[in-house]
């Protein structure tokens, strides 16, 4: 039997400037096997309940997993955990790139930041060495400038930099953490937490490559990616056209969030901003994460306007800064994406908050004077891009919108709260619950607000029983098939919960969900077990992994319970319960009775109190979480 490795942790007290090296025993690490679970465990050791997200007492954790850095596709995701300033819940966000692998190559599983530095600093990690350096000269600079400055300053082009832009410095509630100037720990405002600590960046030098426990078996698994790509047109299409490849299909089906979710139909703009158009027009190259064969990342270039240093827009970005705002011009969307990456903001919350403002403007709740002369009508891409900068710098109306749509609506009043398309104050990503009601249920109950990467999507239960998708899903549970995705019944509730546990363990093992997910992806659940065995010598089971995923969800939920969150916070915006009035999906809506019944059943299946929606003592004990009682 292989002993689970211990976790190696760097703990930085930014107040005193001291750096400690700690280890977490393998028997504990195995319960929280990296990424989000490890980050949450470490954060909750030191976080005092009631601490505000932007207070120095908040604890910020970067974490990876024992698998990170092995040379195989989808292995390099970096997790960031802290209390979220946007939602007030346990906060959590993952990003791709190379930095996660570099961190592990230097020997570290987690970096814990506590306290607050008196002046701006950045951390440099080089093997066992870690040093805080003055970042005063970097404060106020955009991400591209900072990355370039740090490369020059440290005399090393092979560094990876996770940093905040001016938005994080200005404590924009949905500021993100950017690496490679184009990969974001986007959601939950983790960049604002970093800014509140005067921490500008974390630099990681390249380390020694990781070696698998069973090299031969591991390499067989890694080398199979080429054949798998040839045989899996879904993943191959993802590589070719990026995550934005289906945008036009969403509109054609009537489920592309458009003009602040008033409709799902965007015939006037969908073709312009879909992934195939991006491929044919502004794509400079396809980019990748460490050791990944898929190459789904975009790099776009529009000379004189959009710098390829800042990558290119994902589907969520094209929707949030495109169709949400009624913007039909791909160049405007690419520019908005670049600005968000320069200033360091989550493109989803940023676009959705601007679309909220546009609806307020069109409904007369925001005046031209408040908009400072900007014509905030849907479709005005130039106004969107002007607002992106104002938000990052907290100028004028941007200062209000930097708080997110839910808090902004409290100030604007006049019934504007119904225009905030958010859950737990986090703006919704571009998968409509009318189309995917199980995803909608997870939007509502998810501990850190609406998230589309927290469970498998309903549509795969429409696939035939002999499809790859259904075959793989059967490893997690047997579900009946559907002839459309729109229903929410008991089967779908179980689907939502069980696939949520699986996605939760992927976020813990720091794996990419497009490569290691449970249905259409490059590798399936069987290969995940093989990865753990061959990569680490860890003879695990799906049962153990699913329990780890469930443990993470319950830790978050218990964190939230301590902060006063209840079932009343597990809601969806009212607009989703109203039938579409146009487009191919006309008449379709989330059935409120089915949603409420589904939520109640979800609580019961999850072992949560049906009244409060919080984990029962028995559930926490079942998951070895007695220490949270």
């Amino acid at each position: 039997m292989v002993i689970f490795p211990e976790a190696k942790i760097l703990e930085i007290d930014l107040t005193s400037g001291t750096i400690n090296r700690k280890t977490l025993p393998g028997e504990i690490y195995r319960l929280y096997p990296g990424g989000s679970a490890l980050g949450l465990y470490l954060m909750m050791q030191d976080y005092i309940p009631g601490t505000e997200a932007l207070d120095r007492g908040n604890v910020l954790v970067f974490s990876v997993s024992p698998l990170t850095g092995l040379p195989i596709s989808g292995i390099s995701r970096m997790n960031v955990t802290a209390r979220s300033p946007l939602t007030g819940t346990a906060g959590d966000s993952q990003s791709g790139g190379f930095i996660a692998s570099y961190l592990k190559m230097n020997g570290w599983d987690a970096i814990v930041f506590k306290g607050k530095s008196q002046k701006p600093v950045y951390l440099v990690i080089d093997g066992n060495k870690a040093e805080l350096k003055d970042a005063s000269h970097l404060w106020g600079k955009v991400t591209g400038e900072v990355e370039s400055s740090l490369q020059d300053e440290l005399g090393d082009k092979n560094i990876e930099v996770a940093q905040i832009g001016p938005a994080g410095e200005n404590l924009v509630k949905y500021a993100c953490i950017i690496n490679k100037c184009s990969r974001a720990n986007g959601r939950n405002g983790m960049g604002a937490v970093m800014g509140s600590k005067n921490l500008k960046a974390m630099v990681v030098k390249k380390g020694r490559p990781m070696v698998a426990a069973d090299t031969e078996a591991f390499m067989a698994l890694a080398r199979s990616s080429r054949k798998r790509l040839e045989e899996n047109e879904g993943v191959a299409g993802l590589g070719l056209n990026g995550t934005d490849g289906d945008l036009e299909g969403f509109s054609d089906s009537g489920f592309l969030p458009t003009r602040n979710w008033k409709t799902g139909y965007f015939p006037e703009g969908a073709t312009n901003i879909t992934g195939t158009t991006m491929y044919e027009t502004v794509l400079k190259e396809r980019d990748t994460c460490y050791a990944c064969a898929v190459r789904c990342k975009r790099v776009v270039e529009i000379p004189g306007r959009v710098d390829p240093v800042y990558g290119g827009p994902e589907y969520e970005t094209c929707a949030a800064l495109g169709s949400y705002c009624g913007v039909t011009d791909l160049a405007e969307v690419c520019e908005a994406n670049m600005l968000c990456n320069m200033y360091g903001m989550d493109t989803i919350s940023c676009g959705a908050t601007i679309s909220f403002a546009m609806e307020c403007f069109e409904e007369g709740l925001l005046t031209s004077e408040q908009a400072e002369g900007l014509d905030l009508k849907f479709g005005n891409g130039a106004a969107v891009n002007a607002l992106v900068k104002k938000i990052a710098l907290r100028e004028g109306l941007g200062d209000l919108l930097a708080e997110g749509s839910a808090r902004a609506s409290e100030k604007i009043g006049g019934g504007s709260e119904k225009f905030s398309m958010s859950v737990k104050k986090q703006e919704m990503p571009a998968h409509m619950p009318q189309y995917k009601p199980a995803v909608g249920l997870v939007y509502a109950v998810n501990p850190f607000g609406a998230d589309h990467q927290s469970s498998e999507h309903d549509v795969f239960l429409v696939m035939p029983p002999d499809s790859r998708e259904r075959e793989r899903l059967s490893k997690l549970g047997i579900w009946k098939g559907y002839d459309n995705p729109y229903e929410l019944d008991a089967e779908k509730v179980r689907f939502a919960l069980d696939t949520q546990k699986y996605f939760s363990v992927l976020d813990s093992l720091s794996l990419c969900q497009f490569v290691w997910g449970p249905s259409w992806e490059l590798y399936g659940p069987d290969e995940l077990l093989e990865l753990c065995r061959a990569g680490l010598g860890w003879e695990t089971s799906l049962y153990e992994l699913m329990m780890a995923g469930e443990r993470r969800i319950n830790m978050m939920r218990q964190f939230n319970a301590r902060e006063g969150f209840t079932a009343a916070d597990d809601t969806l915006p009212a607009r989703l319960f109203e039938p579409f009035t146009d487009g191919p999906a006309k008449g379709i809506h989330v059935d409120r009775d089915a949603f409420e019944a589904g939520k109640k059943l979800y609580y019961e299946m999850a072992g949560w109190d049906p009244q409060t929606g919080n984990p029962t003592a028995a559930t926490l004990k079942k998951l070895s979480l007695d220490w949270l009682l």
Partner: protein
Amino acid sequence: MGETKRISITLNHKPCEIDAGMTVSELLSFKGFPKSVAVFVNKTPLLMKTYPTYELKEADTVIVFRPLGGG
């Protein structure tokens, strides 16, 4: 050689004319759909393994469902 006989079907709620004897796989290719889709003929779901051999008939109502993702 005689002309290929044509038949009329309904595809995703729209009328469509195809060659008689066309299989589901051929229809998917002809219309540019990916292979990983769900197909319902006259409301009956088909197994994927039947796509290459299932021949469509006059007046069939065909629904092709493509699961949409993105991130």
